[in-house]
C-alpha cells in the first residue's frame, strides 16, 4: 500500500519536511518503461540517503546534514541534542502573531510544527573526475517532473533530534517508494502523473497516515483505492475519510480563500445544569452578507445559510464542487422547475424548501423539513435537534419570521428540558474579523427567546448520504 503510519498521542512537535525532487528519465519505445521508472526512483532514493542531503529549518539559520554523522550549522545542535532544542532557533512568523486574538490562542494549543525544506549539497563531492558529456542519439521521450515530497514525523520534545532526522530520511525513502507505485499504476503510455502526498488524521490506533494520490485524477475515479484503504484501516464504510478534502490541516496552515472556519470553537459553552452539547461535526465556512463582492444585504440570508451548508459537504469530502453563488443557486431553482426564469438575477428571498431543492439539485443531498407553527415550540424540539447533530452532524438552515439563520448545535438537558441554540447569523455585513464576530454574537449561543414566538418556522435538516 502506498501510505505509512505515525502514532501521535503524546507528541507535541511535528517535524514536517517538504521539498521537490526532480524526476528525470528517458522513455523510448524499445525499453521497459516500468523498469526505467523504477530505476529512476532508486536513483532518487540513493540521493535521499546520501550524505549530500540537507534539511534547512524554516525561519531559522539551522542546517542539518542528517546522513553525514549529523552535522549541523549550529555548534550547539549535535547528535545528542533533543528535538525541543531546535525550537529556540526558530523565529516566530510575525504576521501570524499579529492576527491572532487571545481567544484564538487559548483554543489552539496543538503541537508545534517545525517546517523544514529539502536541500542538496553540491560541494564536497566524493571524487574529482572532470565532467564528461554523454550523448544519446535516437528518438526518445524525455520525461521530467517535480516530485512534491512532504513527510511528517510526530515527536516529543525530549526525543533525540538525530533519531528524528533519521526517521525523516526513512520517511522520505518510503514516500518515494509509495510514489513509484502510484506513478507506475497511473501511467498511460509516456504520460506520467505527478504523485501527490496527502496527510490524514485517522482515528486511533491508526493515527496520522500519508496517502499518495495521482494529480489530476478526481476523487470519483479513486474509489477503488479508498475502498482498500477503508478496509485496511477499519474506517466506516459510509462516510468520506480519505478524500483530498479530508486531508489534515496543520496548525500553521492558513486557509487561502479568506473565509473563517468553525468560528464556534472559540465560544464558551452555555452554563446550563445537566446539559449536553450536540454540535455540528467537521468543518464549515462562515458565509454572510456582503461577501464575494455581492451586496445581498436584506435579501440574501437564506442564500448565505445555504452556502454554509454547501461548504460543509464540500469540506467533508462529499463533493468536489465549489460553493455556488447567488445566481448559481437561482439557476438551479429555475432548472428544477421550482422557479420561473425571471427569478434568475432577482433579489427574491428563498426559504427552507428552496434550500432543500437546491441541495438536492446540485449535490444530490436529501433534507428533512421540520415545521413549527410558533417559534415558541422550538424550545421543545431539543431531542430531535440533538439527534440530528449526533447522527448527521450537518448545519441546519432555519427560516421564519422574515429571517433565515443557521443552527450549528444545541445545548440541551434531557432532564430539565432547558435548551440553548448555537446560531451562526448570515446577516453580518462586516469583514472576516473573528474578534468582532464572537464578541458581538454573530456566532453565539442564544436562548429560546431568540425566535419570534408567534411566527412559524421551517427547518431544513440536510442528510448525509452513504459514500466514501
Amino acid at each position, binding site marked *: 500500500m502506498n501510505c505509512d503510519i505515525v502514532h501521535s498521542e503524546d507528541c507535541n512537535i511535528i517535524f514536517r519536511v517538504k*521539498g*521537490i*525532487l*526532480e*524526476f*528525470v528519465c*528517458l*522513455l523510448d519505445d524499445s*525499453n521497459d518503461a516500468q*523498469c*526505467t521508472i523504477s*530505476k529512476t526512483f532508486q536513483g532518487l532514493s540513493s540521493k535521499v540517503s546520501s550524505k549530500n542531503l*540537507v534539511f*534547512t529549518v524554516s525561519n531559522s*539559520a539551522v*542546517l542539518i546534514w542528517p546522513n553525514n554523522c549529523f552535522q549541523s*550549522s549550529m555548534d550547539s545542535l549535535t547528535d545528542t541534542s533533543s528535538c525541543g532544542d531546535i525550537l529556540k532557533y526558530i523565529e516566530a512568523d510575525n504576521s501570524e502573531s499579529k492576527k491572532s486574538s487571545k481567544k484564538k490562542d487559548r483554543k489552539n494549543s496543538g503541537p508545534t510544527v517545525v517546517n523544514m*525544506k*529539502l*536541500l*542538496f*549539497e*553540491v*560541494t*564536497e*563531492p*566524493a*571524487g*574529482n*573526475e*572532470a*565532467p*564528461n*558529456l*554523454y*550523448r*544519446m*542519439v*535516437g*528518438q*526518445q*521521450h*524525455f*520525461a*521530467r*517532473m*517535480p516530485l*512534491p515530497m512532504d513527510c511528517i514525523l510526530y515527536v516529543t520534545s525530549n526525543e533525540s533530534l538525530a533519531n528524528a532526522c533519521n526517521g525523516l530520511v526513512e520517511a522520505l525513502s518510503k514516500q518515494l517508494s509509495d510514489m513509484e507505485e502510484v506513478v507506475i499504476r497511473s501511467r498511460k503510455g*509516456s*504520460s*506520467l*502523473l*505527478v504523485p501527490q502526498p496527502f496527510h490524514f488524521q485517522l482515528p486511533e490506533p491508526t493515527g496520522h497516515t500519508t496517502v499518495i494520490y495521482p*494529480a*489530476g485524477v478526481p476523487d470519483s475515479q479513486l474509489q477503488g483505492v479508498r475502498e482498500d484503504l477503508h478496509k485496511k484501516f477499519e474506517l466506516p464504510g459510509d462516510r468520506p475519510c480519505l478524500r483530498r478534502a479530508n486531508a489534515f490541516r496543520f496548525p500553521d496552515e492558513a486557509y487561502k480563500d479568506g473565509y473563517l472556519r468553525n468560528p464556534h470553537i472559540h465560544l464558551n459553552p452555555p452554563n446550563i445544569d445537566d446539559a449536553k452539547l450536540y454540535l455540528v461535526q467537521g468543518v464549515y465556512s462562515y458565509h454572510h452578507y456582503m461577501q464575494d463582492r455581492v451586496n445581498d444585504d436584506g435579501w440574501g440570508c437564506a442564500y448565505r445559510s445555504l452556502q454554509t451548508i454547501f461548504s460543509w459537504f464540500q469540506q467533508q469530502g462529499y463533493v468536489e464542487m465549489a460553493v455556488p453563488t447567488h445566481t448559481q443557486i437561482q439557476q438551479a431553482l429555475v432548472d428544477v422547475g421550482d422557479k420561473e426564469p425571471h427569478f434568475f438575477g432577482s433579489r427574491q428571498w428563498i426559504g427552507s424548501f428552496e434550500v432543500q431543492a437546491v441541495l438536492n439539485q446540485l449535490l444530490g443531498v436529501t433534507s428533512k423539513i421540520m415545521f413549527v407553527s410558533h417559534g415558541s415550540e422550538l424550545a421543545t424540539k431539543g431531542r430531535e435537534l440533538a439527534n440530528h447533530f449526533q447522527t448527521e452532524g450537518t448545519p441546519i438552515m432555519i427560516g421564519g419570521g422574515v429571517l433565515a439563520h443557521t443552527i450549528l448545535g444545541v445545548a440541551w438537558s434531557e432532564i430539565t428540558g432547558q435548551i440553548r441554540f448555537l446560531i451562526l447569523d448570515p446577516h453580518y455585513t462586516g469583514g472576516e474579523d473573528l474578534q468582532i464576530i464572537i464578541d458581538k454574537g454573530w456566532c453565539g449561543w442564544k436562548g429560546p427567546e431568540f425566535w419570534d414566538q408567534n411566527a412559524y418556522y421551517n427547518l431544513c435538516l440536510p442528510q448525509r448520504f452513504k459514500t466514501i
Partner: protein
Amino acid sequence: MGRSYIVDEAVEKYLGELQTPPGSCVTGLLTGQSSPQRDFVVLAVQTPHRESEGPAKASTGGSPLDDIDVEWVTEHARQVSRMLPGGLSILGLFLVTPPELSKDAQNTLKRLIFAVDKYITKGRLWELTEEDVTDRVTLHICSITKKAVCRTFDVKDPKSSAKPADWKYQTSVLSSWPMLTCSVELDVHIPVNESASNNTEKCIQDGFRKWAKQIEAGHCLINGKQAFDDSEFISGQKKNPKITQRQTLPARILVSDEHPEVDERSSAQVQVCSGSARVRGVVHCRAYIHNNKPKARQAAQAIKRDIINTVSCRVEMFLEDLLISEGSHKGPCSGRQALPRRVFVPAPCSGLSLCDYMFPDESTGDVAERLKEMLDWDIPETDIDISLETSHLFCSEVTDSHSSDSSEHVTSEVETPKIQKAPQYYAGVAVAAAVALLATATSLLYFNE
C-alpha cells in the same frame, strides 16, 4: 562623483614597459574586481599581435585607430575572461596612442568597450543584479608623455558619455585577498531537439539555464557561515599588513530542485526529442574577494558565478571544437566525451591564480603556449596545476587519436616534468582508472537499455 580605481603597482610597471611602435596604437585589457564603493585593477594585458594578418591594411591612409582590429580585441577579451577565476572580470581597456591621435582616442575606446562587453557577455548564464557595477574603465595613455587619462562608460546605456574617474596606484592590492574554493558536482540532463531554429549547441546551453538558476538561488556557506546578506564578510583574518599570506576559504553550496513555475503541474513534462545529453562530473572553482569591507552576499555571488562560468565556458569550448571537427561527419553519435578540464596557474608577480582549459588531446605544453600567446607570460610547465580536476579519458601527448569517443587510453597523464609528483600519481591513476572503467561500464549499460 566618479568612480575610484585602486590599481596594483604591477599594472603600473606593465603599462610603463609597453613597447609601442612609433605612430601606432596598442590596445589591451584591464582586469580586476568591482564593488559598489570602488574598483580594483589587478592585471593588465596587451592585445597580442594577430599572426594571420592579411596584406597590411595600415597604409590605406586611414588613421592607425581605424586599423584596430575590433574583432580581435573582443576575441582576446573573451579568451582572457575565460581565464579569470570568480570575482575577477574584464573591467575595461587601455589604449596607447601617439599624441596626435589623442583627441580621437575616447571615441575609439568607447566603441571598443561596448563591443567587448557585448561579446564577452554573450552566452552568459547568470543575470546581472542591481548591485553589479556596469561602469567600465577606459585608460588612454599618450605614448610620448606617458600621461594617462581615465574615464568610465556605463555599458548598460549605449548613449552614456565619458565620466571622469580616479586612477590611483597602490602596492600589493590583492596580496591579502581571501580566495574561496570549492569542488562542485553536477549531473545535468538535457533533451536535444534539432530544428531549424534550435541547434544542438543552443539546446545544450539552454538546458544549463535551469541548473544555473539553481546555483544562483542556492545557499552558500563560506567557512561554515551562511553568506547571503549585506553583513560584512569577515574572512577571519586579522588585519596585519605585514602578513601577506592569502587565506583559502572553503565554500559550500546547497541547492533545491524547486522551480516554482513548473511545480504546479499535474503531469510530467514529456518532450519528444531526437537525442539527449548528460553532463556529469566535478568542477573545481575559485573566487577572489577584495578585503575592503566586502559584503557576504558579494562573496557568495563571486563563487557562484565562477561555478556557472566554468561549466558554461567548457561546454561552449567543447561545442565550438565539435563544430569544427564534426563538420564533415554524418552527424553526432552516441557515447561519452570528455569536456575540457580546468587547470590553474599562478600569475608571475601577484600569486593570483588564473586558469585555462585543457582538451583531452592537449598537454601542459599546449597550455603554456596559450598563456604565452594570450597573456604574454612565461610559465614553466611544472607550475601548471592539473591535479584539481582529474580525467580518465585524457591521453598523454602521444601518437594518435583525435578519436575521443573510442577506447579510453588508460595511460597516466604524467609527463616527465612532474617528477616529484609521479609516484603517488601513478598509483592514484591506476586505482582511479579501475573505478572509471567500472563507472563507464555501468553508465553505458544504463544508456543502452
